């Protein structure tokens, strides 16, 4: 699904990712853990194609294609989804209009006809219900006045609608209370299939109790320094970064 080889990334002239290698196969869920400033979010944004994140060395191959050749919106069309750590508020744009434009953008990219308003409403209502979302949130402006938990649920709703092959979820668990964490986790688990992959980026082991990863990687100073199974996350939680690495 995704092969990252010796990746170096600069943001504003400063190198943040310094030679990162990672392979994710279809059906796998990986977790990257690390302290603030390790470069976890930079990795997520680079995969999504944010334009001030410059790849200076290395490659990212997605489904056999050079991912760096694709614009951000094209990457979504190819099946990549980034769940934001801080979802952006967009006053004046309704959540429904946003999601319908997004879904039809992806459909168009894949040569499919636009979904009608009626079909879209049916779909979005069903997905929102599964996430226990208040239907009013669909009519409101994108993320405006949403609580932290509501924003993350809204991210999960977008993921469910776009049905990506590779979901990169950046600190999706931050700012969630225990009920919201459970619901968001169910949303992530629903996205786990034999043909999809998930990359979780997180600070804490907490989320991994609900979404059990196949692999855990520890990232320090722009590199993966240790990889293992889900037991690595537990060890990290108990002993701290200093003694594990």
């Amino acid at each position, binding site marked *: 699904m995704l092969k990252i080889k010796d990746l170096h990334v600069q943001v504003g002239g400063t190198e943040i990712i310094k030679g990162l290698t990672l392979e994710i196969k279809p059906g796998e869920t990986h977790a990257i853990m690390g302290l603030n400033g390790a470069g976890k979010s930079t990795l997520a944004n680079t995969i*999504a*194609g*944010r*334009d001030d994140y410059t790849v200076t060395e290395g490659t990212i191959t997605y489904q056999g294609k050079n991912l760096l050749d694709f*614009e*951000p*919106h094209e990457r*979504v*069309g190819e099946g990549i989804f*980034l769940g*934001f750590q801080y*979802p*952006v508020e*967009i*006053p*004046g*744009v309704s959540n429904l*209009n*946003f*999601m319908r*434009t*997004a*879904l039809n*953008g*992806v459909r168009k*990219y894949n040569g499919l006809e636009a979904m009608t308003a009626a079909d879209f409403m049916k779909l979005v209502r069903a997905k929102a219900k599964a996430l226990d979302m208040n239907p009013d949130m669909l009519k409101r*402006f994108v993320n405006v006045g949403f609580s932290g938990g509501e924003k993350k649920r809204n991210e999960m709703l*977008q993921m469910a609608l*776009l049905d990506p092959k590779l979901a990169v979820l950046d600190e999706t668990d931050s700012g969630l209370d225990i009920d919201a964490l459970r619901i968001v986790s169910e949303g992530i688990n629903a996205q786990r299939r034999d043909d999809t992959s998930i990359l979780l980026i997180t600070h804490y082991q907490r989320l991994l109790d609900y979404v059990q990863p196949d692999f855990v990687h520890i990232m320090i100073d722009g590199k993966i320094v240790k990889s293992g199974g889900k037991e690595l996350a537990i060890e990290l939680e108990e002993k701290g970064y200093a003694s594990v690495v």
Partner: protein
Amino acid sequence: MNEQVISGYKSQSLGLHGTIPGADQLREKAFSNFEAQGFPTKKSEDWRYSDMRQFHKQAYGLVDHAAKPELPDMLGETAARFVFINGRYSEDLSDLGDLWQAISIRPLANHFMSNEYRVNELITGTDAVSCLNTAMLRDGLVLSVPAGVEIDDPIEIVHVMSDASNQAAHVRHVVELGEYAAVSVIERFIGDDSAYWTNSVLQARVTEGAKLRHIRVQEDGANAVHTAKSYINLDGGSEYICTNVALGGKMSRFDAEVRILVDGAKAIVNGVALAGSGQSHDMHVHISHIAPHSSSDQVFRTVADSHGKTSFQGKITVAKDAQRTLADQSFKALIFDKTAEANAKPELEILADDVKCSHGATVGQLDDKAIFYLTSRGIDPETARQMLVAAFTAEALEKIEFDDIKEALSGRIATWMLTRTATPKA
């Protein structure tokens, strides 16, 4: 100001002698006033962002040929349509619907033929450009809505300029609302590529409890100069709700002078301006709170492409006796690159002590975080920018109560986004 230009206008004004009974003296007086002032220069505070003189190498003539240009589709459901071609009322092209049964609406020339004594009510306007409009008084509409009559669908007044290079149209409309009457007027301005000048004035008296909705859609031709002034007098508990949309012309200026004369009136003056390369849109609002317990609100949103310019001057004055005034003003401008320009000049002059007034002005670029968020969901960058501009301008269109018209105007904004030249930084 060039002597030749002044004398050109003088002979034009004199040439209109005898066309409307009782108007000759009025024109003469207005012309002397204009002559004394000359065209405003950038030194004049009210005109610091628009230079009319650069377009005035010679006097614009008065057109008199009967063009038959194509008319635009209606913006939405309307009760009636009145058409002015090159500044003259066209009976053939107008469609009065069944409006005549409810209200009195007549071409200005005819109206003053039978009500000569009322001509002197047209002296509104003391600035040079309005004075020139009066000095050229020839055509317009007089629209009187009797007390208690409410007209649901808007009345559309279309001003078309065709094959009118170096010609001008000085149209004057008079709107009178009886007590508790309500009407909506859409003024539209369109034209071809000829280098014409449209100089329009609308004056309205909104009596007790009455409501005037006013929508202006300026889509003049690419080489046109557009100046317009609205003089609005509000009586007790009345409402004036205006939305001005400036899209066309090389240089355009809209000037609203609203006076709240009696307690409890409400004035809303909103606007959107989109300036493409080489265009300048200037909006000038003065809301004068003379009586207490009144409120006013101004929301302006402008967008300037490469080498485009938008300007806003919003003035609120609160007289000493106008206690309990509520007045808000918000101006936000987007500029697409370094060559785009946005000017903002809020002015508050408050003499009463028990008032609540606020104002805010910001100039910025499209939010690149928002663009990345939208594109990271599969929306292409062009559509993302369109969505953000639509959202940005929506607030200033909010007070339009007709959904079809609001939609038509949103469509204009989307089209403008497709035809502009700069790629806003994302």
